[in-house]
């Protein structure tokens, strides 16, 4: 007999996982949608966000504003997002180079970048896992039956919801958003109609980087960051993208949710086989519904 408290905790973990995965997957899908590049480097941006908060952001906030909760909740993720946007800007020329090239070139170049990022993390922050759980601890916990629910994680879920809303507004209600969607449908036609496609590509890459950095910044206080995390996230984010459908905005959401549910269930029943079971589901979906569960719609 499973207790009510446990059910609440599990459901709440599913939402937390969904939020985090969504912030990674949506950027992956944005870049694929517009540029037709599967950006293997993308999870490294999330990891960079984590490292920035742990190694830089929290320290800055504490030294300038003292250890108080509100700035610790808001400022470090924004610093992380800023750093990742700068990193995205640095690699942007490579993305322009790759956008017309074959899949192999794209895979190899983004893979090379992933290797570089992993070592840059080691160069700057060393091999030890980093934590910065001040905000997480200060926010405290709610008690449900015998279980504790960290308030911080609720903050992450709410932030992700607000970001989804803002992203939706951006993509559907602003001019640049309409151009991004138009480019993802037919980039040549968009260019022919006089849009500055290069600017659209730049905004897409920066937006994806911003979301990944913010995601990493929000995620870190509840966990720790270590080397090799980018690859683990890549493996997970890719299942999300396969399940939801490559390049689909709605799919990022559906995929994140399903993967979180699967993870929660497998971690409960067969912790050793977590990844294996998730991948079996991904392969089944790719076999029977190759366009993903996002309905195959672009947006």
């Amino acid at each position: 007999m499973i207790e009510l408290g446990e059910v609440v905790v599990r459901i709440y973990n599913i939402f937390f996982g969904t939020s985090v995965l969504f912030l990674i997957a949506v950027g992956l899908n944005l870049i694929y949608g517009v540029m037709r590049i599967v950006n293997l480097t993308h999870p490294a941006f999330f990891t960079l966000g984590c490292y920035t908060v742990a190694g830089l952001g929290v320290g800055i906030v504490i030294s300038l504003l003292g250890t108080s909760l509100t700035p610790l909740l808001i400022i470090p993720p924004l610093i992380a997002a800023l750093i990742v946007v700068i990193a995205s800007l640095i690699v942007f020329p490579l993305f322009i180079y790759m956008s017309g090239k074959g899949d192999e070139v794209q895979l190899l170049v983004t893979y090379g970048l992933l290797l570089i990022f992993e070592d840059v993390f080691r160069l700057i922050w060393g091999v030890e896992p980093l934590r910065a759980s001040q905000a997480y601890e200060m926010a405290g916990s709610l008690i449900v039956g015998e279980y504790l629910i960290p308030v911080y994680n609720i903050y992450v879920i709410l932030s992700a919801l607000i970001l989804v809303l803002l992203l939706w507004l951006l993509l559907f209600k602003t001019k640049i958003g309409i151009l991004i969607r138009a480019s993802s449908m037919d980039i040549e036609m968009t260019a022919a109609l006089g849009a500055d496609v290069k600017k659209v590509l730049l905004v897409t890459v920066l937006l994806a980087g911003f979301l990944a950095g913010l995601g990493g910044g929000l995620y870190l206080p509840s966990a720790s960051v270590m080397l090799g995390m980018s690859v683990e996230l890549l493996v997970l984010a890719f299942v999300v993208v396969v399940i939801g459908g490559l390049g689909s905005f709605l799919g990022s959401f559906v995929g994140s949710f399903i993967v979180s549910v699967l993870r929660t269930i497998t971690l409960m029943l067969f912790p050793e086989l977590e990844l294996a079971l998730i991948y079996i589901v991904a392969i089944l979906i790719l076999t029977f519904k190759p366009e993903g569960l996002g309905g195959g719609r672009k947006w």
Partner: protein
Amino acid sequence: MVERLKKAFGDDLRSNFILLAIIAVIYPAIYAISPGWGIVLGHGITWIIALLGFNLLFGYTGLLSFGHALFLGIGAYTAGFMYKYLGINSIELHILGSILSSAVVALAIGLVVVRYTRIFFAIFMLAIAQVFWSLYYKFYWITGGTDGIKMARFSILGISLEHLDFTTYHHIYFYFTTFLTTILIYLMWRIVNSPFGLTLKAIRDNEVRAKFIGIDIYKMRLYAFIISAIYAGITGALVANHHRLVTPDIAYWTTSGKVVFATLLGGTRIFIGPLIGSFIFHVIESFAMRFIYWQLIMGAFIIAIVILMPGGIAQILRTFVESIRHSGRIGG
């Protein structure tokens, strides 16, 4: 002369053997001067096999695998398990065992993954390799976890080598591996030049057209995948015996990166590419290992190779030789 050189860096079997023969001849001298470099050459010889397999899959079939460490791991753990649980330390049996196990695993996985190409194939391979790596980690009561499986010295033709000094032992390993590599290079040459190999190239160059002329693309890819896995598995078994230690590291994604990088460096689509790639990679690695940020260099190299010299070193040498011939003609 120039014609021969030009051929050497293209699709020519003999130049592979000449290069191997030169290395086999100079190896004792290099080992005598510095055992460290002798061991580096030993690594070079060992990895040629896996790179040949990777090149069959990527260069000739067009399937880019980011998870070749999977099969290196299978090969290495097969050797490790054979020693740990069955007490077998015959290197020939380890190799046979790893051929069998990597073929079986490749068949099971290949039935699913070769249906996909490009992005999906690349990342599925990465993910499956990571799954296996995590299993080696988590089932530590079987695999020894991070401590790995320690192995005794291998025996060859039933002769134990325990009593030998390390130098002689390493020489035996080196020449045994060179012998094996020679055979496997010959076999790979027969494979890529057989109707099967040409079919693979046809599929790589134009999948739709290949399908129209009645080629069973899926089956051909599966065969290439299994052969490639067997080659990687053999290297895995050899590496296990060379290091006498099997740890999950061999199945980690960085090992896959090493395979991708070394093959690209030598040159894909060119038969001698893996041979050149393996040696040059291990020479660079032995320098760069002192510098711990080795992945950073590797990543930067991958990007530079892809953008600046897609044919790798073999391609550069070929172009160089062609330019010599050209200038010779003008002069004459």
